[in-house]
């Protein structure tokens, strides 16, 4: 049986998640501190989840200079009150929590830390090589005991760490300048409700260095279709999950579909990873 985590962005669907047979419930997202509930709300949620016999995962937003202190303060306010897992998404937060997190806190490398992808060295083909896990980075951050990845990331070399796969989408970018807020001519904190509803977008023009204009895509080009939740840009999943720990993004499911996905994700025993 796989371990299944339901990932929520806020506590809005916590009752629904607690009614489902998930092993863990996570709250938060990688992109934005504004969306993360306050420490009291998170503490109450953690208490409920843990009292129900589940694991509680707190997702740390990527820290920027003006948010770094707030991010760590909020995470530690929860972690000192309950034995939680924190998915860390930037090196600065990882360094701080590696020394400051209480002993009952488990640290995991979040998707913001596992985005590494080399560029092509082939002058005739700029298509990027497959994304891979920066195992050497993880070796420098030994407090991070597990890693979250999408289904496209090559996890070779990470056999010593538990692999947790997000199965619903492949994050391909986060905006410091949030596209959703920008579209609505606003910004944090007023933009908080706007990212509950995604944009579905499809590329129809390309921008070229040679002239700096956008021009129609060449005939036959596959048009990337993306989903944008707030400042997070997601691509569709193309690869089946293989890890024994699976994370379901509740935003992408109606209540009925989420219940079905939890059941389906428990599935059979996992195939060994490390391809």
């Amino acid at each position: 049986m796989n371990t299944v985590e339901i990932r929520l962005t806020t506590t809005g669907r916590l009752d629904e998640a607690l009614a489902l047979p998930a092993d863990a419930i996570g709250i938060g997202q990688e992109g934005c501190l504004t969306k993360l509930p306050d420490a009291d709300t998170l503490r109450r949620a953690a208490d409920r989840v843990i009292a129900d016999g589940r694991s509680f995962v707190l997702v740390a937003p990527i820290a920027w200079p003006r948010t770094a202190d707030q991010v760590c303060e909020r995470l530690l306010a929860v972690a000192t009150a309950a034995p939680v897992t924190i998915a860390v998404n930037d090196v600065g937060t990882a360094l701080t929590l590696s020394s400051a997190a209480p002993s009952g806190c488990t640290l995991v490398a979040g998707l913001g830390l596992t985005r590494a992808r080399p560029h092509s060295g082939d002058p005739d083909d700029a298509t990027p090589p497959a994304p891979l896990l920066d195992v050497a980075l993880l070796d420098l951050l030994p407090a991070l005991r597990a890693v979250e990845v999408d289904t496209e990331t090559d996890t070779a070399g990470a056999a010593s760490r538990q692999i947790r796969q997000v199965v619903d989408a492949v994050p391909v970018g986060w905006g410091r300048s949030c596209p959703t807020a920008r579209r609505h001519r606003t910004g944090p904190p007023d933009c908080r409700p706007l990212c509950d509803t995604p944009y579905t977008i499809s590329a129809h023009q390309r921008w070229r260095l040679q002239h700096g204009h956008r021009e129609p895509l060449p005939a036959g080009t596959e048009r990337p279709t993306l989903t944008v939740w707030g400042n997070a840009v997601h691509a569709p999943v193309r690869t089946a999950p293989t890890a024994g720990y699976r994370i379901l993004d509740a935003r992408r499911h109606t209540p009925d579909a989420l219940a079905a996905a939890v059941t389906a994700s428990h599935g059979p025993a996992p195939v060994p990873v490390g391809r």
Partner: protein
Amino acid sequence: MPVDPPPGQPCAPREPAPRPDPDRRPVALNAPVRSLKMLELQMAAGANEVYVALRPPADVAVSFDALPARRDDEPTHVPSTALLAELVTAAHAAGLRVHFCADAPVVAHGHEAAWRAHVGAGVDAGADTVVVGSLAGVARLSGSGIPLVAGLPMGVSTLGYAAHLRDAYGVRRIVVPHTLTLGEITGFCTLDGLEIEVPVQTGAGLDCTRCRLSDIPGVGLGCRAGYTGSQADEGPPADLGGFLDGASDCALCDVPALIEIGVRAMQIPGRESPNVRQNAKITQMYRRAVTGHTAGTPITEVIAAIDRVELMWQMGWLPRLCDQQRCRFRDTPQQRAYV
């Protein structure tokens, strides 16, 4: 809600306008180079540092720096070690510092030896520093005696990370992310023992460190592409233009502020530039702003002088940057949407 800056005009000067500090170390302009012609143009334009990258070995399918071998069909690398040595020698003869880019965001385990050899080629050619793109890369070279620059792909987005690079690995310069406010950069400049380099004249709005939208076949840079689409309750798909493009490129009006907060270098983009003369022109504009500030000339007067004589300013810069409010450090819709 703040009022947008008026379109069609250069940015207003900050009040009070920063005055030059005569004791401040001069700021460097760090410009891209991939050929002798490009070096010649950048030197003439006023660059006093250059950064270069070398084509990876033919049997390695990945680039060992922060760009692919070609972007939008333009080359990004110096094609040979012989030319690299020639470039470094010429740059040094002109008094320029040379940074060798080995700033791949990740080096696969199987490529580690080749990456180290690649770094060695840059050092053997005489480069003054090596720009690294990952914490693992910094750790690999720490203690080697090679002066290290933490490059843009590292995404050094917190002061704690910057201090760690300095204290644990001896890094002495950090290139900060595109998407920082002036106030945030000021914080980095207060860290003792670190030079802060700021990329100017380019940006993304997206967090480049974690982006997988570059070099999409047929599309190129996904952050700059045009999109159609809608929010679920907005109705049928509409033309959203550059929906993901939150770039705030131009920092020219804020060159005096950058100098006075203690920025050590400004990085001009363009190893992949399709027009090396235009690329050098950007360096020239920033040189005029630096020189003007050092001489006590207000930036508005510097820009007015540029406006009188520079066709590129009138035809390219004003309509594409000023009119579009693509101001790096000003109160614009792009910056108001910073998370």
